[in-house]
């Protein structure tokens, strides 16, 4: 099953190759969906295929290295009240998660969305937002 994990780095941990060593130790194939790390710490969103048991092991590996980590359902949210179905967001989406349907209304396919946030800034009326159900 595709799982998403959110890792928060403190400023002391930002310089350490934590993700790289977890990947090495677990042999996990990881997809980095979002990363924003500076000297002051930051966040990374990754996704991978894992069973329940594997998931526990991976979370433990991260925790042992001293970062905050949790499984997340962080998704992109479309505010239907604000969206006027222009379609500006469609062509910047790397995974074709956004499209106009038959009657020219915007459709967001949450299955395909990787939370890259690119569409958020393309939307002229801020109808797309990252929601963190943390």
């Amino acid at each position, binding site marked *: 099953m595709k799982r998403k994990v959110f890792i928060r780095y403190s400023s002391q941990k930002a310089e350490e190759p934590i993700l790289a060593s977890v990947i090495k130790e677990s042999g996990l194939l990881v997809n980095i969906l979002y990363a924003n790390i500076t000297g002051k710490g930051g966040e990374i969103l990754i996704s991978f295929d894992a069973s329940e048991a594997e998931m526990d092991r991976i979370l433990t590996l991260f925790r042992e290295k001293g970062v905050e980590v949790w499984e997340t359902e962080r998704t992109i949210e479309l505010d239907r009240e604000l969206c*006027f179905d*222009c379609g*500006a967001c*469609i*062509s910047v989406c790397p995974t074709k998660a956004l499209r106009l349907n038959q009657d*020219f209304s915007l459709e967001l396919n949450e299955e395909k969305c990787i939370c890259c946030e690119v569409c958020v800034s*393309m939307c002229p009326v801020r109808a797309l937002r990252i929601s963190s159900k943390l």
Partner: protein
Amino acid sequence: MTEVKKTIEYINERIRSGDAVVVTAEEMVQIVKEKGSVKAAREVDVVTTGTFGAMCSSGAFLNFGHSDPPIKFGGGEIYLNDVPAYAGLAAVDTYIGATSMSVSRGMEYGGGHVIEDLVRGREVVLRGRGYSTDCYPRKEIETVITIEDLNQAILCSPRNAYQRYRAAANSRDETIYTYMGMLLPNFGNVTFSGAGVLSPLTKDPTYETIGIGTRIFLGGGKGYIFWEGTQHDPKRGLGTIAVVGDLKQMKPRYLRGCTIHRYGTSLYVGLGVPIPILNERIAQSAGLDETQIKTEVLDYGVPRRDRPVLREVSYAELRSGEIELAGKSVPVSPLGSFKLAREIALTLKEWIERGEFLLSQPLQRLPSDSVCRPMKQAEVTPLVRDVMTKEVITGRADYPIAEAAKILREKNIDHLPIVDEKGKLIGIVTSWDIATSIGTKKNRLSEVMTTRVITAHEDEPVDFVARTLEKHKISGVPVVNSGMEVKGILTSEDISRLLGRRKK
């Protein structure tokens, strides 16, 4: 000569008696296809159009009424929710333009948002300053108003509803942020605006029925065309209209403030024009389908007024969501809402069918032979080749750092482009790179040089390079030809020298 001849008066009679046949431009496509233009002209009285897109040349005149003691904003300053409004009219009149930006929130909130908030009936903070006169003694005021409190609120825009518009793509190796939205590097996406089959001026491209006094759907209320739009360019199929209407009657669904990321603020405007089908010629153009409506894809990666045309394209291709460009299939985004354009055409159709909206006889047609000229500039656009230093001192990757330090010091320069044995640019070293390498174990230039070099070309305008320097926070760029051979160097000093000369 035409076979069918109807007048606007005759059509209005039919609207009044409830007999008028009104269809949207989308429906008209089918009718003309099936019956031909003569029969279509006999049967159909009015074709309704619609468009909903960002129109930057939009704004509104507002009148606040007088305070006590009175204040004269004219010659002073006016802010609406911190967005500067024009203070060059009389005491308490202003014009708020869509692209004016908040002094506190920047691009997140602008004149377009103020107009939307007014239409929504929300409270807006009015802050203003005057210089005090014997008749207007007051110097400052801060108050809260809603649209109800205004004597007049008149949407009045010098340029709306472009007949068609160019689609945009980007050849550069970096994402650029334009009024056509975010354009991904290396032709990563295409954006376009205009409502295609529903686009008002496209449906009467010689303006046989459109002109001063034409009554239209504007922002959810009724409005009028009061002049040709600015930059009206009929010969190239780029006509525009200037429109006016009572903001108090308008609806927030059809007037939306917006932020175009890293570009600025604007206003999305919903607008629809009824086209009376007076003859088969008009029936023909009102029935054009999207394969017949063409535009060009321009390269917005080239920061010049005349951008290169990448290809011709029909609105049907753009609407499909993907087009071929530079040998690959590229995703396409509309910028305007086709769904709302359709809704506007349908609303206008209903208004006319119910007899609530009569057509007006234009007092004067829009010009169909004028041209839009470029700005007259006092100086020729300076190009990189005119300003750059041509005698460039270059280095090699295997030079010792100490030697490069000596060169920079002796020649009093800050940038050392690094070339390979064939003279091709492979990197750059600045005096900063050298200064920060002192005390480290590094000793060859290859260890300190930047290999992803930002460059300029000889035929680029200097203003463009100035923006590149600012954007990447660097102080100079090597100038290269298409073979990456170094032809010169351009530094921020060279540019400020030029700008200094300009100011004199």
